[in-house]
């Protein structure tokens, strides 16, 4: 074995470089990419099939690198060759002959054994609102609609009324903390919306009015989930009660509702 | 019923002892009851054979105790006529309440603020004793065996502090915590005796758990005085 100066033995050796690169590539694909969200870059777990595909490409690259010149190729092959033939590597050879087949067998079992999963229920949080709704036989135009209570009466009174409405109706699911974890919240699927996240400021009050008034059953056909437990509140609450609970909600959560844009058109809800 | 009388008497003696020093006029009187006394609710003690065995006839909850036209378990106290701020030291002997046959004995009694109350269990079953005063701190303790005794004290005067047992939902008692020693509880015949009142004119109040309160004015001389209260069936 060569004793070139500089770096210690392992990082310089072509075989171990190959091994290290393979491991680094796998760690990057399987853990590195999903971990990007911790530094603020949106990401998601990489599906296994994609990891396999990436690894295949990575391996080709690594192979091209180790076979780039004769010397390196020989260096790369040397430990493999020695493991295969050398008398003093007999134990390593035998272990590999046992461990490798078992590993392959285990992987095969993992991929063929039956697994049980429920169907994934997709979720679209902000479906597009209709331009108008019928609220207790009265047509309400949603486009451009402002909360009428903000220009009428006393805001404090609306807030107080909204608090009453919230605590008597919304609390069991959406919770004291507005975190969607009320004492009944976890019994429903999908779980109730949290208001302390980033949703409220993205929505106009008219959108919230529509979602409250029509609830889960009023979601448009393309707007999953269909099993939202959100009641149809027009069956329980008056128009003013809903507008007041919306005032309370934004105040309690510490957000401002999204304003209609100057031309009176709302940017598409994501 | 005899037992009840005995406990009431015991208490009366305790009160007497406490007030003997004053040795002044005694107000004696009767709490009368007119009309037909309602039947007391039956208590089903099937689940508590140890208590049930202590009764020869089916036990009832003695809400209304009427004998010879007199109403028992009425708490009588002085509401006005005493010198302002009149206070007396609490006696060192405790007031007692016993749990016997899954009922409280006595059902109504008074102690002075700061006087000890001895809570005793004579039943070989679990009782919890929950006191629910408003001005004093309450408590909820357990007495799982016969013979257990616990001492408790209420430092502040308060009327009709409810005592109850949650294991036996029917068990209820009322404790009056008083600033003065001038109080009494009518016995099973409605008779009461309020000792040690200095000469003067007083307003007495009689309290019954079902029929509320009645007041009477009494003038006490060196030879004492008499007062009569009349409750009517409702």
């Amino acid at each position: 074995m060569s004793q070139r100066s500089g770096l210690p033995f392992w990082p310089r050796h072509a075989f171990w470089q190959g091994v290290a690169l393979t491991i680094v590539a796998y760690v990057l694909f399987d853990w590195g990419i999903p971990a990007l969200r911790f530094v603020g870059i949106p990401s998601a777990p990489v599906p296994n099939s994609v990891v396999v595909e990436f690894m295949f490409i990575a391996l080709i690259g690594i192979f091209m690198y180790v076979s780039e010149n004769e010397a390196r190729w020989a260096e790369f092959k040397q430990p493999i060759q020695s493991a295969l033939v050398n008398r003093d590597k007999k134990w390593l050879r035998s272990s590999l002959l046992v461990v490798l087949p078992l590993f392959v067998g285990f992987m095969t079992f993992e991929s063929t054994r039956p697994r049980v999963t429920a169907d994934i229920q997709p979720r679209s949080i902000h479906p597009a609102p209709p331009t108008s709704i019928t609220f207790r036989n009265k047509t309400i135009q949603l486009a451009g609609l402002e909360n009428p209570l903000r220009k009428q009466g006393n805001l404090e009174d609306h807030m107080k009324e909204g608090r009453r409405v919230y605590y008597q109706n919304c609390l069991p699911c959406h919770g004291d903390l507005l975190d969607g974890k009320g004492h009944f919240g976890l019994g429903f699927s999908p779980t109730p919306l949290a208001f302390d996240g980033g949703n409220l400021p993205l929505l106009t009050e008219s959108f919230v009015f529509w979602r409250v008034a029509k609830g889960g059953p009023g979601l448009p056909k393309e707007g999953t989930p269909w099993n939202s437990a959100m009641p149809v509140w027009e069956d329980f609450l008056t128009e003013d009660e809903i507008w007041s609970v919306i005032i309370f909600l934004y105040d309690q959560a510490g957000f401002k509702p999204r304003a209609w844009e100057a031309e009176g058109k709302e940017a598409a809800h994501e | 019923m005899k037992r009840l009388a005995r406990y009431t008497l015991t208490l009366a003696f305790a009160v007497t002892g406490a007030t003997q020093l004053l040795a002044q006029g005694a107000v004696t009187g009767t709490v009368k009851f007119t009309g037909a006394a309602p039947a007391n609710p039956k208590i089903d003690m099937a689940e508590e054979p140890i208590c049930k065995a202590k009764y020869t006839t089916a036990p009832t909850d003695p809400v209304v105790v009427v004998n010879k036209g007199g109403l028992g378990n009425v708490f009588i106290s002085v509401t006005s006529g005493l010198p302002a701020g009149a206070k007396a030291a609490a006696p060192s002997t405790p007031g007692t309440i016993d749990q016997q046959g899954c009922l409280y004995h006595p059902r109504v009694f008074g102690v002075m603020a700061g006087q000890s109350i001895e809570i005793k269990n004579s039943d070989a079953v679990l009782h919890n004793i929950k006191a629910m005063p408003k001005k004093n701190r309450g408590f909820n303790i357990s007495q799982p065996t016969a013979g257990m005794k616990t001492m408790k004290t209420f430092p502040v005067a308060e009327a009709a502090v409810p005592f109850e047992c949650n294991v036996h939902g029917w068990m209820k008692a009322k404790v009056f915590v008083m600033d003065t020693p001038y109080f009494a509880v009518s016995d099973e015949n409605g008779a009461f005796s309020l000792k040690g009142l200095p000469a003067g004119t007083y307003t007495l109040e009689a309290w019954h758990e079902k029929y509320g309160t009645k007041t009477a004015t009494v003038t006490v001389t060196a030879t004492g005085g008499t007062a009569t209260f009349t409750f009517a069936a409702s």
Partner: protein
Amino acid sequence: MNRATAGRYGGKAAGVIFGAALLLTGFPADRLSAQDVQRGKVVYDKWCMGCHGETGLGDGPAAKFMLPPPRDFTGAKYQIRTTASGELPADADIERVVAEGMPGTAMPEWKSKLSGAEQKDVVAYVKSLSTFFEGAQPPAVVAFGKAPGGGADAIADGGKTFEKLECFKCHGMSGRGNGKSSPTLKDDWDFPIRAANLSQNWNFNGGGAVEDIYRRMRTGLDGTPMPSFSDALDAKVITDEQLWHVAQYVRSLSPEESPPAVREVIRAAPVAQGAALPAGPDDSTWSRAEPSFIPMVGQIIAKPRWFAPSVTGIWVQSMHDGNKLAVRVSWDDGSKSPDPAWDEWMARLVKSVTDADGALTPAQGPDRFWVQFPKRVTDEAERPYFLGGNTRRPVYLWRWASTPDASEEGTGTGLGRFAALSGASEMTHAASFTDGRWHVQFTRALVPADTTASPTFGVGRAIPIAFFAGDGSNGETGARGAVSAWYAIYLDVPTPPTVYVMPLVAVLLTAGLGLVVVWRAQQQNRKS
């Protein structure tokens, strides 16, 4: 911690005040403490008032929309304390409840919302709502000691002491909160209150660990019927070790995994070749089926809503034999309804819970349980509306009621809209009620006679399933009751032999290939 906070509030809080008005008039309160109270009021008015009310009477707008109701602070009665029964709580006791919440109630944890300082401030304010804290010395904290070793002997001893102390009078012999006294239980405000179901320690108001249980027995839960057992220790009726053993015994009544994990899929295992499906709900075969825990919550979506459900969770087991599917559901219930012993409970319940959506009557109904499937099992992602389906996508229902003990199968097109299937029911049921627990077994053929009227339970696929439970002694009639979301039931197929053969082939192939490679390499090495 306790000493420090006690010094901060207790010793210095000579003037505990009722509100900002008094503060402004120059009430001679300690400055720091007064500011705490003032800041605490801001927190209280924003976050606590909705339940506990403007003046702390426990009468906020939400008060009648939950059971147990919010606590009245004016009497300074606190359930979860480290002090003796009737004593004021230590500041740390109230702080703990604020931070951690009270499991089994609507009181959430606040530590994720309020800062440490805000939590302390709100505690200072809450204390100011009661005159009892005025000038009060910090209360003595009970020395609890440490738990002795557990184990089977300790638990067995705890079981004996449990009987000796007659805990079963309220909690029931199996600890399911169904003791003889349970229907008469009320709190200090005459609200109906349940004896804790000791087999669901995740709902214990003060925590479900052995230490928590021991502490509750030592201090009692003030304001509730649960007394302190410290006097029994003082009177040497039991030893401290025995009381610890009771705590260990009580803990053992709940599952190891607490709260039980909720899994989306209920597995219906195939019975062994030639073996029969369980004959009834008490068949010992059921002990071999893995139970799945399904949380249940109040039906608060359609009129009349129900905010005080009695059933908060059920256990589901399932098996099939290739021809029939058997599903056993088990849940705890204090009574076989209707039961006159529960009239007293009903009378209190009617006064305590809102009747906003329609009059609540004290009349009892039967206990009920419904199992719901889609009427048609399809590959579409869209399932029927979970709350009883609708006309566009109906559900297939099994409905059982306790009195008379009867069941029916039919089609649901919305909660309460039900049409029984024509002809004799293909679903059969058997129910048993033992010591506060219902077991109901439903059995039906995998393939129904009319596959257009009810679904086929195909093996090897996840079939949506949902549940409804109603306790007739808890006012749960009609749409009032507890519901679940959709879950799935999966009828396992016997594992195909390829699952085992394939890995074996892979092992042999790899080993063979390896040998060839080694052999070739050595041959070449020898040649060179």
